[in-house]
């Protein structure tokens, strides 16, 4: 089966659960920014949870199916339309050969996951079908989709399942406003003054327009003040510079002390900016659903809280699995 791309949307890419193991040579893991929603979409159509899907940001694509298929759309509230007729999100539905899948305007969130029974069958590169656009690697020809692309779809291993849906409490969406992102301070935290550290956690930040798969930029908080120092050899003269080092996923760099950037699935693997800490693993999916201008607060947590949150998140995934495997 083939899916023909009639309109590509804004930046639609093929993603799965990513390509760990190559970060030491600058190849990030990539994969769905909201992994929970990606897994949910796959389970709804009867796929293995790490099958390749389409990740659409802000605006959906327009797709034509060569054969009958079963599809589900999760993540952002980006309502799917089948030959113009609205379908439910977080629910699997049948598409007939020749039908067109398009999308209504975005209502909520930022990234929708479009799963098709059988999975998007692009070649596996370094263990994953995910697109790493900066390195022209993986996905469909290493890039975002374009009109005219024809996406191969694999053969479903389990009988496709239509008409199944996921209860609201299992969707893992942000609870309220401002969105709270839990952060473990650390890394180069000692570079800023105590007052700057307090300001960082008490200010309300807003998602800046420069927010993509590499990283999310935030603005609106007070600039961070640095502890004075003699620049170490190799670091550079700006107080926010360090001797170029590896960047953790979720790490928060603040070039010049002004606008924090949280690195995400297509992270640059290293560079010369200090970081105040990192967003905990349990809250990384939330970032993928933030629209520009969304108010955000960074909440200071310790390792125990981070691990408890991780456990809670794993329990949510377990509930999702048992609800859909039943």
């Amino acid at each position, binding site marked *: 089966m083939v899916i023909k791309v009639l309109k590509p949307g804004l930046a639609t890419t093929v993603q799965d659960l990513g390509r*760990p*193991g190559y*970060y*030491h*040579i*600058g*190849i990030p893991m990539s994969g769905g920014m909201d992994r929970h929603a990606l897994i949910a979409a796959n389970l709804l159509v009867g796929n293995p949870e790490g099958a390749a899907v389409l990740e659409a940001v802000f605006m959906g694509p327009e797709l034509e199916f060569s054969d009958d298929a079963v599809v589900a759309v999760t993540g952002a509230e980006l309502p799917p339309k089948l030959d113009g007729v609205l379908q439910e999100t977080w629910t699997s539905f049948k598409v007939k050969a020749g039908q067109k899948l398009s999308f209504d305007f975005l209502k909520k969130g930022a990234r929708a996951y479009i799963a098709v029974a059988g999975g998007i069958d692009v070649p596996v*590169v370094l263990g994953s079908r995910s697109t*790493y656009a*900066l*390195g*022209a*690697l*993986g996905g469909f020809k*290493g890039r975002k989709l374009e009109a005219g692309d024809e996406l191969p779809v694999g053969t479903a291993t389990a009988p496709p399942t239509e008409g199944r849906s996921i209860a609201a409490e299992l969707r893992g969406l942000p609870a309220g406003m401002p969105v709270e992102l839990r952060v*473990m301070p*650390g*890394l180069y*935290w000692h570079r800023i003054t105590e007052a700057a550290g307090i300001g960082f956690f008490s200010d309300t930040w807003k998602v800046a327009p420069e927010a993509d798969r590499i990283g999310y930029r935030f603005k609106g908080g007070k600039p961070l003040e640095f502890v004075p120092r003699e620049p*170490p*050899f*190799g*670091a*550079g*003269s700006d107080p926010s*510079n*360090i*001797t*170029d*080092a*590896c960047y*953790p*996923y*979720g*790490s928060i760099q603040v070039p010049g002390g002004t606008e924090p950037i949280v690195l995400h699935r297509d992270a*640059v*693997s*290293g*560079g*010369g900016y200090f*970081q105040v*800490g*990192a*967003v*905990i*693993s*349990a809250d990384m999916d939330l970032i993928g659903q933030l629209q520009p201008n969304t108010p955000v607060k960074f909440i200071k947590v310790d*390792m125990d809280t*981070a*691990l408890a949150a*991780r456990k809670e998140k*794993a329990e949510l995934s377990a509930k999702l699995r048992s609800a859909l495997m039943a």
Partner: protein
Amino acid sequence: MQTRFSFGGDEHIFAEVDEAMSLEAFFKSLFITNAVREARIKGVTEICPANASYQVKFDPDVIKPDDLLAELKRMDAAADKSEPVIATRIIEIPVLYNDPWTHETLMRFRERHQDPTATDLEYSARINNLDGVDGFIKAHSSAPWFVSMVGFVAGLPFLYQMVERQRQIQAPKYLRPRTDTPKLTIGHGGCFSCIYSVRGAGGYQMYGVTPMPIYDPNQTISYLRDFMCLFKPGDIVKWKPIDRDAYDTAVADVDAGRFAPVIRDVSFSLAEFNRDIDGYNRKLEGVLHGH
């Protein structure tokens, strides 16, 4: 040097061997990351050496963060007793300095530069007290460089010049990053040179281009068929200045699949290097050219 450890969220441990860059700090980070790789610690998913630091990513569902931290601290203490000798490679990289493509690009972004009236080469020559562009090219290409980190984007090497600190070339990054850098540009920021593996944003000074691809996601280039990235931390690079004709020939050779990079196995001893830097570098260059 006292290594400073920090958790980076609940999935990373970051270790800063030293705040400042030095070959000693780099060798320690390389040594420990090799040891961590060989130890095959369950739950460790990524091991990333950097210039004067390293990072280990792990799955906290498999190994407790405090247990891994204790293990890394133990390995760090053991590393101080090691003899810094590595088996590595020396790779010759042809460079067309002062080329038309980086020149066109640097002129487009002149208002983002410290000195809009000079080129990146002229500016870097001046602030390093070198004798013009030619003097700069000689200083940049005469001694070899260590690949002290691979990253930022896929396959991009950071390179550290193998000379005394007072002879090392230093240059600031652009005041504001460019939105464009030609593929395979030779750049420089702080004390590090780099080769931009892909076209894209960048803030380093631009000095030239190499005709020799260093990253090939399609793996069609002969010497990148086994793996798509050429460089590993610990590789040694020697720049070879070439003219436009040699550049065009090399590009044609790459396209025709007959370009053969000069790569030799070599052993490097930090102690011997420090005893006689220029003499040791001459020996390394001898290995490159088969004598």
